[in-house]
């Protein structure tokens, strides 16, 4: 149980999907103008990452490994992720139209999010059990959401600053992202087993 918790902390903070592995940067830069939209996006991505890594583990374990089709891994994972997102969007829309009202626009965005595929590929090499790999996926997605929310908070404050013309807009955003990554390096070295 202890090494499970350590593994999750490692996945969420130490080698964070965005700040350490540099995955999912397009949504990281695009959607973080406001905290509640970033939170919405973060949670939607967490759901999709967990669901698709469950499916990916199953496909990898029972299909690709069994028939030695390892080289097909990326293509099948993309297929699985796309259908998982589409399926989620439809169920959410049917289950509660008002929910979809608020969150509908994030789901199509997640299909192109490389963090989803990245996490799926990472957990496959880990050779973890099914539950452990799903927890690993959930933890990395939680780390993704945490960094999205923190960065959205920073950008909301930054929107109020009179940034010099040279740095206004994306440049100062990238500087803040790099400083945030530097701060997260404080966690490096925590033995994640």
């Amino acid at each position, binding site marked *: 149980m202890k090494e499970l918790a350590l593994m999750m902390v490692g996945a969420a903070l130490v080698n964070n999907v965005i700040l350490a592995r540099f995955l999912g940067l397009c949504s990281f830069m695009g959607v973080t103008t406001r*905290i509640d939209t970033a939170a919405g996006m973060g949670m939607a991505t967490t759901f999709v990452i967990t669901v698709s890594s469950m499916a990916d583990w199953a496909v990898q374990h029972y299909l690709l490994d069994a028939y030695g089709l390892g080289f097909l891994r990326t293509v099948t994972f993309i297929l699985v992720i796309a259908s998982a997102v589409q399926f989620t969007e439809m169920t959410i829309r049917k289950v509660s139209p008002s929910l979809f009202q608020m969150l509908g626009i994030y789901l199509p965005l997640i299909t192109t999010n490389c963090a989803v595929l990245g996490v799926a590929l990472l957990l496959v090499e880990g050779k973890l059990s099914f539950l452990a790999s799903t927890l690993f996926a959930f933890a990395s997605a939680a780390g993704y959401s945490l960094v999205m*929310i*923190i960065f959205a*908070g*920073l950008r*909301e*404050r*930054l929107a*109020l*600053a*009179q*940034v*010099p013309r040279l*740095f206004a807009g994306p440049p*100062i955003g990238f*500087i*803040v992202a790099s*400083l*945030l990554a*530097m*701060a*997260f*390096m*404080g*966690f*490096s*070295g*925590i*033995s994640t087993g």
Partner: protein
Amino acid sequence: MSALSRTSAAAPVAAPHASTSGSVTAVMATVMLALTPATLYGFWLYGWPSIYLWLITVAFAMLGEAVCLRLMERRAVPVLFDGSAMLTGWLLAVSLPPWAPWWIGALGGLFATMLCKQAFGGLGQNLFNPAMVARVALLISFPVQMTAWVAPLPIDMAAAPGPISGLLVTLKGIPQGLDAVSSASLLGFAKTEMSRGVDLLQSLPHAPSLSWLGSRPGSLGETASWLIAAGGLLLIVRRVISWHIPVAMLAGIAVPAALLHLVDPARYLDATTHLLSGGAMLGAFFIATDYVTSPNTARGQLIFGAGCGVLTYVIRTWAGYPEGVAFAVLLMNSLTPIIDRYVKPRVYGRDRQGVALDAPAMAARPIVGREY
């Protein structure tokens, strides 16, 4: 009425027509005054090289600010001498190893004011504490120079380098001849011993001595903890900072340390060691309480301080770097906008969520006669 017509012809002057005598420069000057005792003691402890390093860092910090202001065609003089660039340089110098080479101080000073302050738009708009960002950047890029601690060599001792040789030390680096014993700070020592499997009980007796007076290896700001605490109390009494962040941060370090020390003294240092060593005191009183990057409500500051403390402890105990204050402060700086957004004072006539209070309920409240 001539004087009158001139002022009113332009835009009318808005109320209030009076204001407090305080100013930003006065605030910065008080903070620098509070830092002076510890810095002077550090100079005495580590001799001339540390004086030159301090001078170079502060000079380059102000140079960086001046260059940026010139680029933005803004008048440099009033901004330069409001003391904020000097304070940033001072805080950075105080957290560097005393005999570090000059280019460490220069690079850190430039980086702090140019990229971490002016790029955001100047004083009051940066998101991270400039001094700490510079220190972390230097620590990550030049780990060797940044962890070359030196045993204290009081300035009046014969072996201590004189003014000229001290300058050489800063410019060229520590000559082999000089027998300045370079040894790790207590935290660094404990971590290396731990990684070699030697638990604390054996390694502590011959660790560098931790006298309350603070004469032990470390940066200028880590030595005389009680001098720094005295400076911090001066700031609290002069109402420059409020007590919330220092108390919360020190508690954030001490509580987990004491608990885990009880659980397993062999693996975890006790609370007083943690408080007196490393940048804990400097961080709590001078770095975490930076106005710009800390929350502006009392409850927010308590959360911020506690966060800094706990993160410092976590990084010191489990993470790779011996000193966690810099990283902890940066991490909590990144959380400040979120703390400020959700922790707000209650508005008069409204409940905590901002919904107006219920008038009939308030009307029913009995009038309690209060004596003043």
